[in-house]
């Protein structure tokens, strides 16, 4: 909705577009709380936003400069309403969202600013959630968003992107969607661990990319595959009591077969080119997991090999952590602990509870629950929400009972 309104008002009026959406949302809730939620709430919101846009343009026609390419059509009541209507048509909105994504990913902005903008404008993320996804501070992210919006507002030609712009910006757009999905999958917000709707949103936007001939490249398909394969496991991530369930304990019958099938099909589609992106590797790892009947019968050799390749193209402490866990599965807990201890740049994992928890798990597995204790105690301390905390506390009790 912000995307459609930004097209109408012009990018320099981005905050006006956001205000209109916020206002439409508040009005909707005021009415819904007494009249009940309508059958089609999003259509209702759209209609409200559309009317507010008309009001704003009529009221401020002379005082404010709106989108230059549309401003002449705003001068007459005859053309005003149809233009607004058209801007909200579903296929236009879809197109606007694509364009908005690419507009946020302006190469003059730093990559982290671009991603923060996509998450904020297209996905409605707050600064707190974005800070979580970046392992960064909230104040820094707020500054980033404000700076990005200022710079977007300064550029008046937002929507006439060339095909070259699209090609050069595609990787940043992919990365933003990847982070969006991750945030949904490992949500750091205080009240919930898994926010399915964020994953769904990321999948929706990625499918949008995949469906467009200019952006539907092999890495885009691999990214879409990766998301489907992870999303398939979402129902198993929490157990019946709403607690985190590790891969070992997950009930594989709860995994979504339709999403797995779609993910595998996308992965095959992504293999058309000769390019092997990070997303290809991660999707292949996810495919190895979902296709295995159990943890013991998982192809850990392939998974370790894929992590090795991932470490050469996109090394990060989190990848190294996952690789260490896969090595422990293949070669036993001692080798896993060795791998954990040799992670370079482990300092960046200092605040990541699953790093300490990994040590704890492997100590338990090699029969030293006493050594596992301090690790789980640290993990409990670092937990970012109640569900994580309960999970680590349970593991802590396991150490005590052994």
């Amino acid at each position, binding site marked *: 909705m912000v995307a459609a309104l930004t097209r109408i008002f012009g990018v320099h009026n981005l905050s006006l577009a956001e205000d209109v959406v916020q206002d439409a*949302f*508040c009005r909707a*809730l*005021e*009415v*819904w*709380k*007494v*009249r*009940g*939620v309508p059958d089609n709430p999003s259509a209702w919101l759209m209609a409200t936003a559309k009317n507010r846009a008309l009001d704003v343009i009529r009221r401020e026609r002379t005082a404010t400069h709106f989108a230059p390419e549309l401003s002449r059509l705003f001068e007459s009541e005859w053309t005003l309403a149809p233009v607004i209507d058209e801007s909200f048509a579903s296929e236009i909105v879809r197109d606007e969202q694509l364009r908005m994504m690419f507009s946020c990913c302006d190469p003059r902005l730093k990559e982290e600013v671009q991603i923060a903008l996509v998450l904020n404008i297209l996905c409605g993320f707050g600064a707190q959630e974005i800070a979580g996804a970046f392992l960064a501070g909230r104040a820094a992210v707020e500054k980033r968003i404000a700076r990005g919006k200022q710079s977007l507002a300064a550029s008046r030609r937002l929507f006439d992107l060339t095909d070259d712009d699209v090609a050069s910006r595609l990787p940043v757009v992919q990365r933003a969607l990847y982070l969006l999905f991750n945030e949904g999958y490992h949500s750091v917000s205080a009240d919930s661990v898994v926010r399915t709707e964020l994953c769904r949103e990321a999948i929706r936007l990625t499918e949008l990319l995949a469906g467009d001939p200019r952006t539907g490249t092999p890495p885009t398909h691999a990214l879409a595959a990766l998301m489907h394969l992870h999303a398939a496991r979402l129902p198993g991530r929490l157990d019946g009591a709403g607690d985190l369930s590790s891969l070992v304990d997950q009930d594989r019958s709860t995994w979504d077969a339709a999403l797995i099938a779609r993910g595998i099909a996308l992965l095959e589609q992504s293999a058309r080119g000769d390019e092997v992106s990070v997303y290809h590797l991660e999707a292949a790892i996810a495919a190895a997991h979902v296709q295995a009947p159990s943890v013991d019968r998982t192809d850990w050799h392939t998974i370790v090999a894929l992590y090795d390749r991932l470490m050469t193209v996109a090394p990060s402490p989190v990848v190294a952590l996952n690789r260490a866990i896969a090595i422990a599965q293949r070669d036993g807990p001692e080798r896993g602990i060795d791998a954990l201890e040799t992670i370079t740049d482990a300092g960046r994992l200092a605040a990541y509870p699953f790093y300490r928890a990994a040590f704890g798990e492997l100590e338990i597995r090699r029969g030293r629950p006493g050594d596992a204790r301090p690790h789980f105690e640290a993990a409990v301390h670092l937990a970012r929400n109640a569900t994580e905390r309960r999970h680590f506390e349970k593991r802590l009790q396991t150490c005590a009972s052994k």
Partner: protein
Amino acid sequence: MSDYIYLFRTTAEARRAAMGTPELAQQSMQRWLAWLGDLETKGHLKSRGQPLENEGKLVRGKSKVITDGPFAEVKDLVAGFMIVEARDISQAAELAKGCPILEGDGAVEVRPVMAMNF
């Protein structure tokens, strides 16, 4: 059974605060829908009414001067209305105790609707 009108009185600020974040807004909406659902199942809800905008005009006196609000600043802004059916005014007032607007320190004005028998 007689009809009573509920006038919901609050401040623009409290109204905004209730919608401050998506979580708060959702909670507020759920509380309202729960309260209304309860009134409805017990057969008290006659009309759900409509919420009112914060802005408006005031037309006053013989000179018929029209002034703007300023409703946004007043301490007891009428935010909406609703009509219930109750045995008597004390039951109507008792039923109003469930209204979520009270949690935000607002008020419910309960007024009997004059009966017209033809």
